[in-house]
């Protein structure tokens, strides 16, 4: 294995590794525009120049393979001067419209300019004019003046999404990034090009002019869009509520996890935050008045009302059952507390999930067919995922044998015939809906309990492969909403069942002790990149 010395530090690396990767392992961060660990190496931008002994010229660190005994200097005046000149040339045609550019604040040009920039330009010539604010796809805007031709996006489309929409056209200083004629950047991973664009050439339409990036806070979380469980960071704007139309969750960005999604995420998942600040959110417990309208009420009143109905149905009779319809969109913690709840009170009519009528879209890369983030977790917790269980409860409801039915999250209309569903739900004596957003099913409910949405709570999801991954709370629950386990805690108190947990970590610790699949797991073990279930 070749031994390489970088800035006096030695490291042994395998063959084929380039200097920039070796430097990274030593903790030496070299500037880069075109180099991306997830893409092929082209050595396009040449900002990563380093001095290598016995080589007469400066070399690009990203494209130079390591050889045995190589001695690299990254901080010599010559190397610094080289990078400075490269940056000057990259900026020759850059329009410097940072004030209106959405990338400002997370722009590599700005960062490296502050570090190694040539502060007084030597250029007297006019800048080249190119296309501005070009609508190249459903989610992406292109400003080709700002482009430094690093080709990261081109390589992404060629290598990762394999859809080949983008290319570099014309020559010399007229070279320009554009989609191929009659093509639009329209694939299921198109916004990843915005993430990897080191400058403001590709910006996201959804985020366009919504907020400046330095107003945003980041919280690590998991995408709830499907059972893939892509790692994301939730960007929130909580201090300046006049930005982004008052939305608190402004955007999602993929977060690197070598085992799950690498650097990428799909466009469906990226916009899965939209229901969080939607007008369909339930912000307070609500009771249905006589005329079919809703009255906002307090938790005490609502919980008491639910408890009274359940108490009335106890002990369970054959024709007056209590049904629980859980959801694999709930976290492991919520499902665990719900399981305890059901066991203690003897509810055995438990269903989970709704199988959609049409087969949802999926692909071989990041988009899974199962659109629930925690199906595997629910299975590990012993929930019966079989469609027959839910059919059974549905039949009971239809046959007028349910005194109380508590539905979590789900819109049953996704899996059942709407007309038939209306009759079935209408036959339930007391229908309680617990969830963050209203839907068709919630309109049939008698009592609505607001649950916290996924960025509003702590917890874990288990992805399709059995990887338990952590959600962190990014924003406070909207209005009076609470995590499901806290709602169950309140309800349990009324029904004489104590839920001893104070926070999600307690529940997960208990989960690790009592459920074999989760044995030995706790939040420290799960950490940032997740941990696998046993077995």
């Amino acid at each position: 294995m070749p031994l390489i010395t970088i800035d006096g530090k030695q490291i042994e690396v395998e063959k084929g590794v380039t200097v920039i990767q070796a430097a990274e392992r030593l903790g030496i961060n070299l500037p880069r525009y075109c180099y991306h660990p997830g893409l092929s190496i082209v050595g396009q931008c040449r900002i990563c120049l380093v001095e290598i002994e016995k080589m007469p010229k400066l070399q690009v660190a990203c494209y130079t393979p390591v050889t045995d005994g190589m001695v690299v200097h990254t901080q010599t005046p010559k190397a610094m001067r080289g990078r400075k000149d490269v940056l000057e040339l990259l900026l020759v045609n850059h329009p410097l419209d940072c004030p209106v550019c959405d990338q400002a604040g997370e722009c590599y040009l700005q960062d490296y300019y502050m570090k190694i920039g040539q502060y007084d330009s030597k250029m007297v010539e006019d800048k080249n004019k190119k296309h501005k604010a070009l609508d190249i796809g459903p989610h992406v805007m292109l400003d080709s003046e700002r482009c430094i031709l690093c080709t990261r996006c081109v390589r992404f489309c060629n290598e990762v999404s394999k859809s080949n929409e983008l290319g570099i056209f014309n020559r010399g200083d007229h070279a320009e990034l554009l989609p191929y004629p009659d093509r639009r950047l329209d694939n299921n991973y198109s916004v990843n090009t915005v993430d990897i664009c080191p400058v403001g050439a590709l910006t996201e339409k959804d985020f366009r002019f919504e907020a400046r990036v330095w107003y945003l806070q980041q919280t690590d979380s998991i995408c709830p869009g499907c059972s893939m469980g892509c790692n994301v960071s939730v960007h929130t704007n909580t201090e300046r509520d006049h930005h982004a139309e008052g939305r608190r969750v402004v955007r999602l960005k993929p977060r690197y996890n070598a085992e799950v999604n690498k650097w990428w995420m799909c466009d469906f998942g990226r916009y899965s935050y939209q229901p969080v600040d939607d007008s369909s959110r339930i912000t307070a417990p609500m009771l249905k008045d006589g005329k079919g309208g809703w009255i906002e009420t307090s938790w005490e009143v609502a919980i008491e009302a639910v408890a009274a109905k359940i108490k009335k149905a106890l002990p369970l009779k054959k024709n007056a059952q209590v049904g629980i319809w859980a959801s694999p969109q709930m976290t492991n913690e919520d499902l665990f507390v719900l399981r305890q709840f059901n066991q203690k009170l003897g509810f055995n009519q438990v269903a989970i999930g709704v199988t959609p009528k049409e087969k949802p879209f999926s692909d071989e890369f990041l988009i899974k067919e199962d659109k629930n983030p925690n199906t595997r977790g629910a299975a590990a917790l012993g929930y019966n995922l079989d469609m027959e269980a839910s059919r059974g409860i549905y039949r009971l409801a239809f046959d007028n044998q349910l005194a109380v039915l508590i539905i979590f999250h789900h819109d049953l209309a996704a899996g059942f015939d709407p007309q038939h569903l209306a009759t079935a739900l209408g036959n339930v004596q007391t229908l309680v809906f617990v969830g963050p957003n209203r839907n068709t099913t919630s309109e049939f409910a008698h009592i609505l309990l607001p649950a916290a949405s996924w960025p509003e709570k702590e917890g874990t999801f288990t992805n399709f492969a059995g990887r338990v991954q952590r959600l962190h709370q990014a924003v406070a629950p909207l209005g009076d909403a609470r995590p499901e386990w806290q709602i169950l805690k309140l309800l349990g108190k009324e029904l004489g069942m104590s839920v001893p947990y104070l926070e999600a970590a307690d529940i997960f610790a208990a989960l690790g002790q009592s459920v074999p699949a989760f044995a030995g797991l706790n939040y420290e073990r799960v950490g940032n990149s997740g941990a696998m279930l046993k077995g």
Partner: protein
Amino acid sequence: MNVHDKYKPLTFWERTYLPRIWDGLVITMHHFFRNLWHFILARFGVQREWKGAVTFQYPEIRRLFHPRLRTMHRLTKRDDGTPRCVACMMCETVCPAKCIYIVAGQRPEKEIEKVPVKFDIDLGMCVFCGYCVEACPEDAIRMDTGVIEMASYSRQSLILTKERLLSHVPHPEYYTMRKDLELAAKPVQLRTESEAGVEAH
């Protein structure tokens, strides 16, 4: 060295404080009688050159402002009358009082793609530090209207909207560097309220 060594000890008389109190009384009484005398002379029209007071009878007589004085904000315009502001939010970011609220919007023109849809300054919270003027990369906001009277009957009317900010005009004639002009009690013509951009209630 002991701090107290710097001061020489007080004598007995000084410790009674009476001489110092007397000195103070002499000064205030001197001013009292001199000014009273000047007032009386002026009242009977004997002379008008010595004044008994340095007071400017605001609002009838106004002093001119120093050019660097920060007065009420305004948004500058391009030649075509649109605001120069590009909603970059530098001022909102730098504002220590967090009294600037900008909502950005798009404009079809490719050259100026970002414009403010809303640009509110809450004068009730503004501390008149002038950082917004310093931070602006487009020279879009200035504090040279010469308007210093901002009292209002409601908090709502203290919020300057984009339209109000754009309607404000600079008043260079209110400013001067010349000491002699500044000290001459020269009446400045009063602006009407609409000119000053202050809404009547």
